[in-house]
């Protein structure tokens, strides 16, 4: 067991898989010699060499297209798109090519690849370098979508993503890169499609993802110590496949549901979870499900403005407390 940053866990997770399987290759902008703009891939170029860890031009379509062609023909590429906002310039591959080729070809075509990307707000980068776009990917049949919240999960879910035979979009939260966490020694392999109850509780279920997980946990501590409200926090971890059983099971115990999302209000992933719970566990609920989101606006750059729009532990705690009528 050792303490490690989320940033270093990215490189360790990739290295674990590249060591295991010579067909795993890695490409992206500034990822090799420079070690990545977020320094999340430092050392991989030195360890695995220029044939397996490759710098690309600023050509997001070429990066994802090349990853797909390599995946179709036998490699297991990991491609980096520096900021998830840039998905918009290569979305053809994410929306039309990766997820549909197997279906359209009646099962002939395979696409075992991972796209990892820096997602989320908190760095004062403004509206085009701060978005949380996991919901863009969740809505597309054929993709798998994960977003780890801890260094341990970065490694375990990266391994699961690389070993998975389907295209996996792997969202790393930029604001979590410096966060530290305990990581076991040796190989770590997780499974896709499993949520994790990171804090058990009996009064309300709070579903969160990525940066919103530590914020939900902080809110839960406040609610417990100051108001005696005992919240269960579910780290959703994987949007596709979605572990609805863990969520429905939690709601069946707590009878209240809150979702905490960084996405703007409309069509965030929380809406899908609320819809599933409303369909399948309506009579378990003692009150309306509540979504805590950013408002439906582009993200501002100034810290005073950005800090207001993202869900904070305080806003989460206040919303839960008010909704529970305490």
């Amino acid at each position, binding site marked *: 067991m050792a303490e490690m940053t989320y940033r270093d866990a990215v490189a360790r997770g990739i290295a674990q898989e590249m060591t295991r399987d010579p067909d795993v290759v890695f490409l992206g902008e500034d990822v090799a010699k420079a070690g990545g703009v977020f320094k999340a891939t430092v050392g991989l170029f030195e360890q695995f060499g220029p044939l397996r860890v490759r710098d690309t031009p600023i050509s997001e379509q070429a990066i994802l*297209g090349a990853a797909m*062609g390599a995946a179709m023909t036998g490699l297991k590429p990991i491609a980096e798109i520096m900021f998830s906002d840039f998905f918009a310039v290569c979305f*053809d591959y994410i929306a039309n090519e990766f997820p549909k080729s197997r279906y359209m*070809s009646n099962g002939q075509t395979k696409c075992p690849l991972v796209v990892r990307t820096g997602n989320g707000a908190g760095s004062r980068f403004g509206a085009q370098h701060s978005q949380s776009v996991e919901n863009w990917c969740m809505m597309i049949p054929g993709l798998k979508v994960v977003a780890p919240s801890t260094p341990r999960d970065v490694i375990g879910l990266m391994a699961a993503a690389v070993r998975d035979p*389907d295209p996996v979009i792997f969202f790393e939260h930029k604001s979590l890169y410096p966060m530290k966490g305990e990581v076991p020694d040796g190989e770590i392999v997780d499974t896709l499609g499993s949520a994790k109850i990171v804090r058990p509780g009996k009064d309300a279920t709070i579903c969160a993802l990525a940066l919103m997980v530590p914020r939900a946990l902080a809110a839960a501590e406040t609610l417990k110590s100051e108001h005696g409200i005992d919240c269960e926090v579910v780290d959703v971890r994987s949007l596709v496949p979605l572990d609805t059983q863990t969520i429905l099971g939690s709601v069946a115990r707590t009878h209240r549901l809150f979702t905490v999302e960084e996405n703007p209000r409309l069509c965030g992933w929380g809406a899908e979870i609320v819809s599933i719970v409303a369909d399948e566990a309506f009579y378990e609920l003692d009150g309306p499900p509540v979504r805590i989101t950013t408002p439906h606006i582009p993200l501002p750059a100034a810290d005073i403005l950005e800090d207001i729009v993202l869900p904070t532990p305080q806003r989460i705690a206040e919303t839960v407390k008010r909704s529970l009528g305490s």
Partner: protein
Amino acid sequence: MALQNERPSGSAGLNDDIGEKKRLELYRTQVVIREAEQRAFDLFLQNLVKGTSHLSLGQEAVAAGFACAMQKGDLSFCTYRGHAHTLARGVSVEKVLGELMQRDNGLMRGKGGSMHLTSEEHGVMGSYAIIGAHLPIACGAAWRAQYKGDKDVSVCFFGDGTTNIGAFHEALNFAAVWKLPVVFVCENNLYMEYTPIGDVTAVKSPAGDRAAAYGLEKIVIDGNDADVVYRAARAAFEKARAGNGPSLIECLTYRHSGHSRADPAKYRPEGELEKWKLRDPIKIYKDRLKQFGVRPKAIDDIDASVRQEVDDATEACKRAPMPPLDILTTDVYADGGWAWRN
């Protein structure tokens, strides 16, 4: 500019660099495409081919010339105008027509349709309906060959309109910088869809004049002469297999039909189609065979056997059942199913 348009005289005899066996293969491939595409059009008029379809009538020499120069294991990446390239790699007419007719005997059992013909066992790695998407994908397949030391070449076909989309330029630069074994083939049929390519392109040769920007040779060839295409393909494949990087080849050709089945092509100036029909690739090649001393009876036999194959395929497709509904949810994910939740 390497405009390879030399017309061999009969004096080269049957033992020139192409040879009789390959020439008969080139001819037969073109006739298969011509007859199958014409049949697809007829079946559309009978409402038996549904959805859209983009025919390669008039462009057969490009598909035949490249496919006949490929080796087993070489990979084709096609566009939505991909019937020709799929047939040229040896996929049966029945499988192609079956897919166009949405039958269970189709290449993808009706799940892909005309614009997405794929047959990996024949090296047809998909037909891509988003303009330009497959150029980077072909780069990736070529990267795999380079990384693994495989000797196959990835061949990517696209139209003149593709040269104005970003993915074209990203892929050309990427392939050149990484020195990938990929061959980019632009079929310049003079119209992007309904608009003349010259009206919307800053240079005269939409692909050829862009080559220099990526450190590549400008290659513009007569795309209606299968021998010329075959020779250009062979040279580009040799270069790729030797580790000397990509090629970009612009083939000048012309489609005899509209852009898609919905297009009567009324935007073409009067007489243009007739002029190009004088340079019909099949007519050119039939004359070529005769020039090289192939007996008319041998040519007629090929024509008759292809017609029979297309007739038989048509009847088989008409008899074939529609796809069963239980394939609706198969193969969304690699486990064979579509489950997105537990």
